């Protein structure tokens, strides 16, 4: 602790940030056990009163060595491990991994599998955003949205459970397609969900969007400019709220996303409120995508031609998808054996977390909580 404190005290503090001439800065630990750090994030805060002079994130409390494990597993065996990274959006993780390996193998999933993938991934995006909304609102002090979002997220998890038997760590996809055909009544369930959840999103917005306190707590809080966001590699809704129209679903379409018609919402100010609005619109856009996908789902096989033993040719591949939290990339190096030589994951949460420091400098402790919430990090993914 002490050497970290020393590091912090050596931070170059601009003179205008100082308000008292001789007072000492207060250094406090937020986390790893703290109600609002979304898991086991530890943030060391350097405070002047309540004003934040600097932060340092200490991560790794949830490190499980996922990337190293991959080197001792076959490609198929590693597939379930990726679900454990961003456990609230496990379907997206699986999609990214499966597509990366498919790219390496140079096979393509059949159209029906791609549509199923899109439906489940977008459902998962809504689930992830709902969880974000609930916890973010709870961090800012509004208790009630949490329970509303969890109630509605339950419906998505029920669909997952019916489809593949698991609710969170779904392991829904296989390399080359999907293992499971949709169950009888899948389309009906999904359509019912669409009509069920649309008014619920309005309900969340009624509670928050025009709420005076919500506006005061989120407007102009944690502002990040487009240039800063790009320089830090920030992706996902955080980047789009700063006004950069960058969504991998449009920019480099994967799965079946090129078949669908949807908008990429962007914000203007890059503050917490814009990020909130962007995610709210994203949920509605996901509903549109699911609707198109479930109406146009083709018949056919669900598995492509994949050999029994997956032995990709020597080479390397980087494939990234738009996970709910941003760009989720897999860099896979193959030495031609059944096991990957190296897998490196580019998790969106880890990269977005880097923006925390510039977003909270000069703000108050209460805003740190709001910013951690709005970055929508999952520590399983940050630490891997």
């Amino acid at each position, binding site marked *: 602790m002490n050497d970290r404190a020393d590091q912090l005290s050596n931070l170059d503090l601009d003179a205008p940030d100082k308000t008292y001439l001789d007072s000492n800065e207060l250094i*406090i630990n937020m986390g790893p056990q703290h109600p609002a750090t979304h898991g086991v994030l530890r943030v060391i805060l350097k405070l002047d009163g309540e004003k934040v002079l600097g932060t340092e994130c200490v991560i790794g409390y949830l490190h499980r060595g996922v990337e190293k494990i991959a080197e001792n597993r076959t490609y198929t065996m590693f597939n379930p491990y990726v679900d454990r990274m961003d456990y609230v959006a496990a379907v997206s993780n699986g999609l990214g991994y499966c597509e990366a390996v498919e790219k390496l193998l140079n096979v393509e999933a059949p159209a029906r599998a791609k549509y199923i993938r899109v439906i489940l991934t977008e459902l998962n995006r809504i689930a992830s955003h709902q969880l974000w909304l609930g916890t973010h609102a709870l961090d800012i002090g509004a208790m009630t949205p949490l329970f509303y979002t969890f109630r509605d997220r339950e419906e998505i998890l029920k669909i997952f459970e019916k489809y593949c038997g698991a609710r969170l760590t779904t392991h829904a996809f296989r390399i080359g397609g999907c293992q499971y055909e949709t169950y009888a009544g899948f389309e009906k369930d999904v359509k019912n969900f669409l009509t069920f959840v649309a008014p619920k999103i309005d309900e969340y917005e009624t509670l928050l969007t025009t709420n005076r306190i919500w506006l005061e707590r989120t407007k102009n809080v944690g502002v990040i400019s487009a240039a800063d966001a790009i320089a830090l590699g920030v992706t996902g809704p955080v980047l789009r709220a700063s006004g950069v129209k960058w969504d991998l679903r449009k920019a480099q379409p994967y799965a079946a996303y090129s078949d669908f018609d949807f908008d990429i919402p962007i914000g203007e100010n890059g503050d917490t409120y814009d990020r909130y609005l962007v995610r709210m619109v994203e949920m509605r856009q996901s509903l549109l995508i699911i609707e198109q996908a479930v109406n146009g789902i083709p018949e056919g096989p669900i598995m492509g031609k994949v050999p029994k033993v997956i032995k990709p040719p020597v080479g390397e591949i980087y494939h990234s998808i738009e996970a709910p939290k941003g760009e989720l990339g897999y860099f896979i190096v193959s030495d031609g054996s059944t096991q990957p030589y190296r897998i490196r994951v580019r998790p969106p949460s880890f990269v977005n977390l880097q923006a925390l420091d510039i977003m909270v400098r000069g703000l108050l*402790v209460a805003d740190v909580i709001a910013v951690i919430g709005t970055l929508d990090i999952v520590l399983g993914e940050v630490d891997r």
Partner: protein
Amino acid sequence: MPNFIMSYLGSTLTPGGAGNQFWALIYVLIIFAGVSVAVIAMNWIERKALAHFQIRLGPMRVGPHGLLQPFADALKLMLKEDIIPSEADQFVFWVAPLIGLLAAFTVYTVIPFGPSQAVSDMNIGILFMLGVSSLGVLGIVVAGWASNSHYPLIGALRSSAQMVSYEVAMGLAVVSAIVMTSLNTSGTGTLSMIGIVQAQQQQGVWFIFKFFPLGFIAFGIFAIAMVAETNRAPFDMAEAESELTAGYHTEYSGLRWSLFMLAEYAAMIAVSSIAVTLWLGGWMRPFPNLLHAPAWDFIFSLFPGLTFAGLAAIALIGTVRMPSQSFFKIQRIGLAIFAGLLGLIALLLLVVAVAGRSDSGIVARFNDGIGYVYWFVLKVSVFMYLFIWYRATWPRYRFDQLMKIGWKVMLPISLGVLVVTAIVGVIF
């Protein structure tokens, strides 16, 4: 029976006013027990109401519909190990919860539950109330400081920042209500809590409707400030759970922690009582001047009994609707007993109401007293429900935003209302 017990019974003064220490002590005990019961009930109601706002059930296991949950919690907290951190300032740490508790309970000495149903009628009653209830903040600040820990310290500092920002506006809003007491031919200005309610009766209007919308604005300012004073959502930044883990009482546990909670809820009831007394006609039933015929008196005196009868009916419906598995048998019996208890109280109150109609002595007086307390408690409970509603609906303010609202919005408005009230009062 000794003279000092019986002599007071015919009096229309408060025990304090009549100089009768015995009855003053009895009243203090009644109020202390009543407030404690109210806090326990409030604990249960808050958890249930909040749960129902949030599509949950709330406590359901301990007793029927969780009715015994507050008692179970109280027992658990009393049996917990009493931890004082070794780094803490032991004595101050020990005394801090008591300061808050004392401040919250002392206020009740001047709260008028009826024209003579108060421990004492101080001629500076409202001043005393504001002064003592503000002392509650001292308990918080001292607790945060004595804990010798970062989060409590920040919580305590927030609390003091909060206090300086709402207290002035709150005081000015109160002053504009006091000004109203003197703005009538029949009224001479008074600071006495009983006097304020009587002034409203003489002027024939609750001060919330006086010089509309002036009274209403002053009331609104007070209603906002009193949420800040009690550290409740959306102004609960002193204990902001998601920010400061538990704020000023992070280091507290067990009985000491429960004293803080007791003080918080007692303070909520106390400030609601101030609001009711100043703006909502205190103990007066609706339209006491218009509907004052004996028949109306009788009808209104039935209300307490009917309320309890209604509660008993709700409990009875709950008993009937309880699932029929053997697992629920004990719960069903318990709820039936609770319904019976409520029904018994209802019956007693109705009997008193009927008996009080033909009696002019002590029973009638007792009957009147029940009516006063009933209307007072009813009005206060509306505020208590609002506290829960706020908590379920709103996010938390940041403390600098509360200061901004306090100084830049509430203070000018309350100052303006005070000046305009005085001018309007002189003209009309």
